[in-house]
C-alpha cells in the first residue's frame, strides 16, 4: 500500500522529506575513480521542488562528511500493486523503503541485501525495541535494514471545515459515533464536502478496513499454537466497520461522491477541500504539505477512536530502509552510511536532528509531524524537544489531540501473512459497500477468506516440501 509506507517516510521526528518509491533502473551504481556511487530513494514523483531541495541539502551534508561516496536521488513511490515488478525487474534504487508488512518476506526470499555486518556496528542497533527491529530480520536473524517512521493509524481533519460546521477544531471526535455526527454536521453545512471518508483503492481500502476492525477488537489473521495462520475476515468487527461506512455513505450521505480513492487520490481530495475528515497514518501531514499544498495551520489530527472491546487497538506500521540485493560490498557500506545519516542519527543525535530540521524548515517542509517511538518513549520525547524550535508553526498545537492520547492506545501490528494480497482483496469489499446499496458482504468476505487462505496454505506447502 502506498500509504503507510509513504507517509512513513515523510515523517519521523523531523525527517520528513523523503518520499517513496518509483525507481528507475539503477541496478548498481558504479564505482569510479575510487568513489562509490549509490542511488537512493528521494521524493515522490511530482513532489514540490522545495522538498527536493531539502533532500539535496541533506545529500550535500552527507557527501561533505563522506567524500568518497556519491549520492544520487531517485523519485520513489512505494505502491502495493507495482512494487513486485520493480523489484523483480531490477528497477529499484540502491536504497529504498519497504513497509513493515513486506520486509520480512522479501528478506527471507533473498530479495534484499543482507546488511548484518554493517548495521550491527551502528551504536543504536542494540537500542531498538526487539519487536521493532524484528521486522527487518529474516528467519535466521540476519538484519536487512533499519526501521524508521513508525506510524499509528489516526484521523486527519480539516480545521476550517470544523469551524464552518459549528464544531470546535480543538475538540475532534473521540468515538466512532462522534465521528459520524461530526461528519453529518460538516456535510450538512458544506454541500459537496465529504464529512468522513476512507481510502478504497490500491490496497489502501483493505489497509483502512483492517485498521477500523482493530479498533473494534477484531483480528483478520490469527496464528495457532502450531504456527498455522488462519484468515478470517467474516467476523463481527469487520462487518461492523463496513456497516459503519455504509451508514455514513447511504444514511448520512456524508461520504462525498467519489469512492475510488487511493492514497494519493485521498490526500489530493483532502488537500482540495473535498474531504473534511479521513483515516490516515499519523504522519501524513508531511506528504500533504509536500504534494497537496495543505496549510499546516489548517490541519488537525487525532487518535483513531477505540471501542470498549478488550482487544481493541490501533494499527501501526512503518517503513524499513533496505538495500538492493544486487549491490556490491562497497555500495552496501555506503548505503548503510546513508541510512544511518538520513534515518538513524536524527532520532538519537541532537546535532543531526537539528541539521535535518533546519534543512526541512528552510525548504518549507514539515518539521514535527507526529509519529510513534522507534526506540522508547523517552528517546522519542528527547528527539522531539531538539527539533521543537524548528517545528512548523502551529503544528505542534494542532497535533496535540493525537500526541496527548496516542500513548494510551494499545499498538497492534498489521496482519503478517500475504498482507498486501489481503488488503487488495478487501479493496473490492470496501468499494462494494460504498457503491452498492445492499451488497452481499458475507459472501464477499468469505471469498476473500478462501482466496487468501489458499495463498497462505500454498506457502506452508512449499515450506513443507523444502
Amino acid at each position, binding site marked *: 500500500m502506498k500509504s503507510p509506507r509513504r507517509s512513513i517516510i515523510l515523517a519521523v521526528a523531523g525527517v520528513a522529506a523523503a518520499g517513496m518509491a*518509483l*525507481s528507475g*533502473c539503477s*541496478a548498481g551504481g558504479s564505482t569510479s575513480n575510487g568513489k562509490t556511487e549509490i542511488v537512493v530513494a528521494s521524493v515522490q514523483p511530482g513532489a514540490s*521542488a522545495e522538498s527536493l531541495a531539502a533532500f539535496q541539502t541533506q545529500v550535500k551534508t552527507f557527501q561533505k562528511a563522506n567524500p568518497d561516496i556519491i549520492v544520487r536521488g*531517485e523519485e520513489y513511490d512505494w505502491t502495493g500493486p507495482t512494487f513486485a515488478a520493480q523489484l523483480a525487474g531490477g*528497477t529499484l534504487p540502491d536504497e529504498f523503503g519497504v513497509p513493515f508488512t513486506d520486509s520480512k518476506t522479501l528478506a527471507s526470499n533473498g530479495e534484499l541485501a543482507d546488511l548484518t555486518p554493517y548495521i550491527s556496528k551502528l551504536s543504536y542497533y542494540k537500542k531498538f525495541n526487539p519487536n521493532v527491529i524484528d521486522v527487518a530480520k529474516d528467519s535466521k536473524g540476519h538484519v536487512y535494514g533499519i526501521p524508521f517512521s513508525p506510524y499509528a493509524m489516526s484521523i486527519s481533519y480539516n480545521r476550517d471545515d470544523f469551524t464552518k460546521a459549528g464544531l470546535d477544531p480543538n475538540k475532534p471526535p473521540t468515538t466512532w459515533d462522534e465521528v459520524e455526527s461530526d461528519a453529518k454536521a460538516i456535510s450538512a453545512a458544506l454541500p459537496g464536502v465529504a464529512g468522513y471518508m476512507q481510502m478504497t483503492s490500491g490496497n489502501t481500502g483493505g489497509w483502512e478496513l483492517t485498521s477500523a476492525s482493530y479498533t473494534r477488537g477484531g483480528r483478520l489473521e490469527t496464528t495457532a499454537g502450531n504456527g498455522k495462520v488462519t484468515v478470517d475476515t467474516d467476523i463481527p468487527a469487520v462487518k461492523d466497520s463496513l456497516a459503519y461506512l455504509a451508514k455514513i455513505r447511504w444514511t448520512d450521505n456524508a461520504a462525498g461522491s467519489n469512492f475510488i480513492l487511493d492514497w*494519493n487520490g485521498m490526500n*489530493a481530495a483532502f488537500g482540495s477541500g473535498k474531504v473534511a475528515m479521513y483515516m490516515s497514518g499519523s504522519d501524513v501531514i508531511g506528504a500533504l504539505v509536500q504534494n*497537496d499544498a495543505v496549510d499546516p495551520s489548517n490541519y488537525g489530527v487525532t487518535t483513531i477512536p477505540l471501542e470498549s472491546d478488550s482487544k481493541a487497538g490501533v494499527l501501526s506500521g512503518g517503513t524499513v530502509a533496505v538495500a538492493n540485493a544486487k549491490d556490491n560490498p562497497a555500495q552496501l557500506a555506503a548505503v548503510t552510511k546513508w541510512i544511518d545519516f538520513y534515518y538513524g542519527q536524527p532520532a538519537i543525535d541532537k546535532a543531526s536532528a537539528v541539521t535535518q530540521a533546519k534543512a526541512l524548515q528552510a525548504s518549507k517542509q514539515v518539521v514535527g509531524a507526529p509519529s510513534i517511538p522507534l526506540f522508547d518513549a523517552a528517546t522519542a520525547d528527547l528527539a522531539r524537544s531538539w527539533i521543537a524550535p524548528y517545528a512548523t508553526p502551529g503544528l505542534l498545537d494542532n497535533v496535540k489531540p493525537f500526541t496527548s492520547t496516542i500513548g494510551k492506545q494499545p499498538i497492534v501490528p498489521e496482519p503478517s501473512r500475504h498482507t498486501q494480497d489481503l488488503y487488495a482483496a478487501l479493496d473490492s469489499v470496501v468499494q462494494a459497500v460504498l457503491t452498492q446499496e445492499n451488497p452481499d458482504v458475507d459472501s464477499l468476505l468469505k471469498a476473500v477468506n478462501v482466496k487468501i487462505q489458499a495463498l497462505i496454505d500454498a506457502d506452508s506447502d512449499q515450506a513443507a516440501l523444502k
Partner: protein
Amino acid sequence: MTATPIVSPENVVLGQEPGRSVRGAASLRRRMARRDKESGLDRGIVSATEWRTPRVRFPLATVQLILLILLVICGLLPILWLMKSAFTPTQDTLTQPLAIFPHGATLSNITAAFGINIKIQSYFLNTIWVAAGAWVVQIVVATTGGYALSILRPKYGKIVSGLVIATLFLPAIVLLIPLYLTILHPLVIGSSLLNTFWAVWLPSGASAFNVVLVMRFFDSLPREIFEAAETDGAGPFRLFWSIVLPMSKPVIGVVTVFAIINTWKDFLWPNLVLPGGTDPSSIQPLSVRLPAIQGTTEFGPFLASLAIATLIPIIMFLVFQRTFLNGGGFGGAVKG
C-alpha cells in the same frame, strides 16, 4: 508500437486493398477539389436538383446545422474548457467548473506547469524525442526492408515477407511480456534497455504494417526505371538512394503520420519501460508522466499541464490538417 493494445491502423488500410491509403488520399483530395468547384462531375447522394427543392433542402440543412452544433459541443467545448481552466485559479475550477473566470484569470497555473515542480516542457521534449527516434527506426526498417523484399528480391525473400506478414495479424498483447523481458535482458547489448529511449524506439521498428505498405508501394513503381538505372551502371545502393527513395515520398509520408501518431499516443508500453530512474524529466514522455503526477500535483497546474499537452498537437493538426485527415485518420480509428 508493437505493444499497443489499440488496434493499429494497419488492418484498416489492408482491408482497403493495396496502396489504397496512398492513392485513396490523393483521389480524396482530387475529388474534394472537384466537388468544391461544383463541376458536376462529382457528387453525393443528394443531387443538385434535389438540393434546390425546399422539401429536401430545408430538413437537410437543419440536420446539418444540428450536427454542426453537436460537433462544436462535443469536439470543441471540452478542449476550450480545458484551455479556460488553465487560466482559472484551482478553487474556482473546483467549485464552479462552468463559470468563466468568476474571480478573474491567472497565469500562475501556466507558470507552475513550466516551473521546476512539473517541468512540462521537458516532458514535451521527451515526447518529441520518443516520436522522432521511433520514426527514424521505422523508416529505416521499412524502406530498406521493403526495397530488399520488393525490388532486389533475393530467393529467400518470400519466406521473409511471409514471416513479416504473419505478424501483421497478431494482437500486440501477445508480445507484451516477452518483449518486456527482452528489454530487461537484451541479447547482444547485455545491459537493460529500461529507462532508455531505445526501449521504445527499437521495438517500434518491428511494424509489419509499415513494411507491407512500403512493399506494396514499391511493387507499384514502374520497373523500367530501375532497369534503366541499372543499364546506366547504378548499383543497388545508388538505386536505393538516388532513385527509389526520392520516388517514395508519398509512402514515407503515410508511414510518418502513422509512426508519429502511434508513438505519441502510446501509453502501456512506455509506461512499462520508462519508469523514470534518477531523472524522469530526461526520459518520460507526457503520456507516462501526466498520470504519474495526477495525485501529487495541485489541480490548477495539473489542468494547465493537460492543456499544454493538448494545445501543441492541436496546432500541429490545424497546420497539417490535410495530412492528418487524409492519412492519419486511420491512426486513431476504431479504438473503442
